[in-house]
């Protein structure tokens, strides 16, 4: 059940990575239209996760490679982990286990990467706040876990903030890399 929201969140974040980097226009439509990036897109990331009850944020880092038909999410520190996302689903490439229901999320993700802004508009209410686009989930399952997602940075996207309903939040700092520097599975 919850695996659906895991995947959905990944979708949200990755879609923002690929969809918001060129956002500089004031109108939402133009801002969203400018989010498409040439694929493959390659980023390194540092994630700082603040979880209620924990005294300090949990930090992780790794790389993100987005292709036309797959996404490779690789965490290198503190625990190595590699996720491969395709139309067939989401697979942990180390344990070779498939995340249940991942195919639905993967298909949604790939649609987003192909520039299907209708999907983003369907799932989120989009507003602009300074140099951030604020995406508020419209649909109930996602809104039960995520209050909003901020994509920030101008002209280059450099930060994604994910706010959960229960007070947790994640800040993912992104740095563009050369598309050929990470091997795609």
């Amino acid at each position, binding site marked *: *059940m*919850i*695996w*659906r*929201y*895991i*995947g959905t*969140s*990944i979708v949200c*974040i990755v879609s923002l990575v690929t969809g918001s980097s060129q956002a500089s226009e004031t109108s939402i439509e133009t801002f969203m239209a400018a989010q498409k990036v040439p694929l493959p897109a390659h980023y390194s990331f540092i*994630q700082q*996760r603040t*979880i*209620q*009850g*924990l*005294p*300090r944020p*949990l930090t*992780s880092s790794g790389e993100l490679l987005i292709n036309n038909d797959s996404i490779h999410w690789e*965490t290198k520190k*503190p*625990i190595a*982990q590699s*996720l491969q996302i395709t139309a067939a689903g989401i697979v942990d490439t180390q344990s070779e286990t498939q995340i*249940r*229901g991942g*195919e*639905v999320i993967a*298909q949604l993700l790939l649609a987003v990467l192909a520039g299907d802004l*209708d*999907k983003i508009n*369907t799932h989120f209410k989009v507003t602009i706040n300074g140099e951030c686009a604020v995406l508020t989930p419209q*649909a*109930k*399952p996602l809104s*039960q*876990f*995520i209050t909003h997602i901020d994509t920030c940075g101008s002209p280059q996207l450099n930060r994604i903030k*994910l706010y*959960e*309903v*229960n007070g*947790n939040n*994640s800040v*993912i700092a992104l740095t563009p890399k050369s598309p050929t520097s990470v091997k795609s599975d």
Partner: protein
Amino acid sequence: MRATVIKLVLAISLLVILLVVGNRHVQWQSSLLHTLPQDTNPLHQAYQNSQQPNEQQFLLWLHIPAEQSESLVAHLRKRVLPQLAAEQPAIKPNEQLAIESLISFYQAHAGSFGPTAAYDQLANQPEQLITAAQQRLQQPSPIWVDLQHDPLLLTQSYVEQLPDMLVGFHYEAPLYLRSGQQNNEILLVLTSGADALSQTEAQRVVERVELQLQGIQQQFPAVELARSGFIFHAAAAANQAKHEMSLFGGLSMLFVLIMLVGVFRSLRHLAFTLFVLTTASAAGFSAVFWLFDSPHVLMLVFATTIIGLCIDYVFHACIAASHGEKSWRAIVPALWLGGITTIAGYILLTFLALPLLQQLGVFMAAALATVLTLVVYCVPRFQLNTPTHPNWGRLHHQLARGYARLHQFRPQYWLPLVAIVVGLIMNSQFVANDSVRQLASSPPNLVQQEQQIRRVTATHFDADVLLIHGNSAEVMLQRYAAVANLLPQWQAQGLITRWQSFFDYVQPPQQQHELQQLQHQLWQTSAGADYLHWLGITVPVQPEAQPWSALLNHPLASLFVYPESTKGYLGVIRLSGVQPELTSYIQEIAHAEHFNPLTQASSALGQYRVQLQWWLIALIGLAWVVLALRIKSQASLAQRIALSTQVISIIIIALGGALSLALVAQSLNVFHFVGAILVVVLGLDYGIFCASNVHREHVLQALSLSALTTAIAFGVLSFSSTPAIAAFGHVVLWGVLFSALLTPLITNKK
């Protein structure tokens, strides 16, 4: 004449008042299962009662090209669902499976529920669990458990591994969606809030849903639709029964009108027949409405047969009256004897514990009593003595002569022998099938849609359930958990293929406690302490042990646990692919019982068929005695016994022949024997008239007219798409024809 009319008007006014007042509180039923006798087992009753909310639930499945899926989803959310919810009875998405309440329950039990594998890992390889939790924490996905109570995210992992209620579909409230390569599927789980047993409400709900579905199909021509739910079948069955009633009733009436006009050449006979029929039907319905709160629509179909029986008495009375005072005086005792034995037969039906037959018995007894009274009272007073058409008279004169020639062959001697032979043959051919599945009458298209939805959702479980009883929630849940532990073993042995149990979604308190203990031990090790240090938290406080009854707070508990009114709690495990050998395993478990409502209903039908068979044998024996004492009272006892024996022999031959022919179409069931009751009572009527002092030619005129109309009235029922009605029609059609052909063989000569 004027006084007669006034009396009739007063009586009919009273009848109309009774009918109108009685009709006010009546709710028609349409499910075939509700025609069955009530199961007296309290566990079974509690289970059956608990299923009513399921009867209000229904599913709509929409299959659409992927590119149109988004638009359809938006259309469903913005137009269809609000419109369905706007009117009464409201049709709303079923929120029982909503995620919020499930998450809330598991959040309150963070750290107490964990995957089965976690127990071993905690004891032997805790590092794996720690690594998995760390990986999980670094994924950009929501964490909804409290880490201070569940540092290893065991409860969140447990929830993620729970079986889906609708396999393969993901929930985007209030829709369930599944994406395919080219097409997407949308599933709407709706509940009507209407009483599914109320035909009016069920019809209204189905009409509103169909209206929305039509709108969807117009807007999205590529959509493929399927419906599933009791309410669709109930509405279809009601429509079908009503359609058949009007079709068969109309055909019978048309044939009767043609015969009346053709034979009597009189509109007075026509008017009188319609008057008797209308009044008798009103009396029948009044009696049913006052005695039953929920009559069944199938009763209406069987009740159309009153047309044939009504005509029978009207014809005999009018034809006798047309032959003068002496003939009228001769027919009246036969009318009373025939009428009263028939009414008695129907009254006896009310002693059987089948609600449908009770309703039919009451209707027919009241209607026939009215027919008999009106015929005997009105025919001489309204001077309904127009002679029949001369050709009709000549035809029956020839027939009477023909049968008289047959009397030379002494049928009084060989009829009983033939009856014995037919009875023996019937006994050797006898094959019964009492399965209620045979009686299903849903339209094939609806059945296909039902199967389609069961296939795509994979949620279908057979009707087999395990019922577990306990005097308290705690006792019942303990027993339930013990039985649930055996399910994997039974599956491995091939005794079942699948199951659905409450303990697929919860774990017993001792298991929760064990999980807490194992975690507590881990925190005492260096690996555990390092992990807590990495998180920056202290050793979690162990929660107090929860009582068994706390499990009932689970949102899905209401699908598996039902309070019995005053006798404790009932737990249900749904099974699929049950093998007969399972029964012996379950018998060894105290307080658990294997129950299949369909098997139970079939068994009940079988018992009542057997009861009806014995009842028929008793009725025939009793009729032989009554006729031997009362038929042709001026004759000697030996002559009366001979007459009675001939009548009964003919009934047995007609019955045996009819049942043998019915066997060609389908195995015998209780509804064949409902038809057999009519064959017996009609055979008695015909026999009594033939054995009476009425001129044989006059009897034949009425008998053939009556038999033709009755055979038509009942014969059309054999074309019914409801197997139960068709079974009834087959037996009565052939039984009446055989009776009509054979009863003129009765000879009242010494």
